């Protein structure tokens, strides 16, 4: 939605929008900033928006990205559609962070946008937000009524996209997380980094548990047994930033046969 709008806004933004669409957040952010510095007016607004949303997706300097989005949302002189997109993205991020400005931001995007995809998504997100906030639902009775009258028009993909998801780990991955957390907090600092493989054994166990739950235990035991052979084979060496050599032995080399019947 954001990249389509951006690409349509200007050919100068085509590369940034393509990079954003491909999920290359770091590159999209740099490209957005580059265009923002060189352009003016709506193109600069849209470029700044792309850069801020990319930074948000990237997860680095989240506070600054949110500040940029909020500033664009509230800038009355800015291009209206850029403001609506900024409000929408800010609202989602604020909601995820448990902030209080999400409903105002989502409502702004819902009421003011003229772009149908954003109208649907802002409305659907606000609908779910109000569904989980009883008190606010009573205060915004008129908005809720409007949302209920529109909701039949929202496509299934919009429902799926905007539905809040639980982001916690699977239950079967929890024992693995606890064991690794205990090891990293209590044992690792005392004995230091001893693993010669990449990823380290604790990270390997974490990844195996995340992917396969309790099956992570035998996968890890197999690695302990194999470790000396892998190190002595010296295959796939990688130099770490501290100059130490480690040997690549990813989980994907040992569980690919569970996922597919290919060689």
């Amino acid at each position, binding site marked *: 939605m954001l990249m389509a709008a951006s690409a349509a806004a200007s050919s100068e933004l085509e*590369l940034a929008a393509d990079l954003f669409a491909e999920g290359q957040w770091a590159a999209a952010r740099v490209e957005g900033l580059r265009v923002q510095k060189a352009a003016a007016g709506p193109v600069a607004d849209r470029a700044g928006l792309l850069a801020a949303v990319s930074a948000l997706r990237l997860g680095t300097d989240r506070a600054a990205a949110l500040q940029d989005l909020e500033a664009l949302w509230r800038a009355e002189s800015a291009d209206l559609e850029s403001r609506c997109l900024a409000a929408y993205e800010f609202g989602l991020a604020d909601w995820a962070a448990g902030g209080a400005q999400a409903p105002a931001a989502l409502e702004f995007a819902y009421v003011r946008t003229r772009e149908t995809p954003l109208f649907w998504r802002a409305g659907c997100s606000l609908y779910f937000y109000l569904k989980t906030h009883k008190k606010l639902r009573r205060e915004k009775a008129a908005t809720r009524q409007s949302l209920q009258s529109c909701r039949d028009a929202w496509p299934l993909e919009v429902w799926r996209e905007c539905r809040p998801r639980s982001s916690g780990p699977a239950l079967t991955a929890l024992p693995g997380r606890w064991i690794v957390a205990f090891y990293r907090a209590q044992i690792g600092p005392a004995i230091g980094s001893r693993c010669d493989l990449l990823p380290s054994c604790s990270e390997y166990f974490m990844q195996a548990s995340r992917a396969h739950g309790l099956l992570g235990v*035998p996968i890890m*035991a*197999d690695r302990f047994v194999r470790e*000396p052979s892998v190190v002595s084979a010296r295959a796939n060496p990688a130099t770490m930033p501290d100059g130490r050599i480690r040997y690549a032995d990813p989980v994907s080399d040992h569980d690919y046969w569970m996922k597919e019947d290919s060689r």
Partner: protein
Amino acid sequence: MNKTLWSFWGLFAAVGSVWAAEPAQLALELDAEGQHEAAAVEFRRLALAEPAGPNAAGWWWLAGQEYAQAEKWERSGRLLDRAEDAAPGALAAPTAWRRAENALQEKDWTSATFHFDSLRLKVASDDLREFAARGSAAANLRAGDAAGARQALADAPGDLAAARAAIDGYASRRDKKPWVGGLLGLVPGLGYVYSGEYANAARSLILNGLFMWGMAETADDDLWGAFAVLTFAEFTWYSGSIYGGIDAAHRHNVRRLDGAVAEIRGERRLQPDFSAVPIVALKFEF
């Protein structure tokens, strides 16, 4: 040793290529530093600045090549599409080659075979036809089709005796059966032995033996707390022996196949030659 074998001068104007090399400086430096994704972005910028045509196609192709270097196969494929759209047919052979290599990396053996076969039909040089035939044979063998692999080499030029022997050697032996490895793994270490991993088998046997002995001793002495801890640890080693038996069989099969494929493909590799970008030229590296 590098040997430039063929270039695609195509429809390019010589004047255009002289000025075009300079703006690519940043992309080429990023490539030399191993920053392939950043180099790809620079090539994309150059492609967007050109009207559709051979130069734009060259930049798109180079961006696709950089993404392939960065192991972003899907992105590479998308940019190769754009290269083909910018100048249909201008970069047919390099695109077929890049797509074939990408498909091999993505384990899409059918596509890899198709693109290598397509490359073989698009080039006149014997060296390239041999290279394409070897690639097609490797893709066929990875797909489990030894007869198809032999067929791919049947009318190819060059000395392919070693490649044919590798296919015959691979086809004459059987893969290890992972389920047998798992079953044998019920006896600690035996699953590893089945796949020829004797050192791993010894370690598995010693660890399982030690912990089982510890369990017996602690049970004998009514030390039930210690018994519970050792039982949990032994469960880890024992389940690891079963899993390891299965995985060792898979590892053995992969090593065997990789060895045969390496023999089939030989030592020559194609690489792009950046000396005249956006003109796409490929050279063999040994």
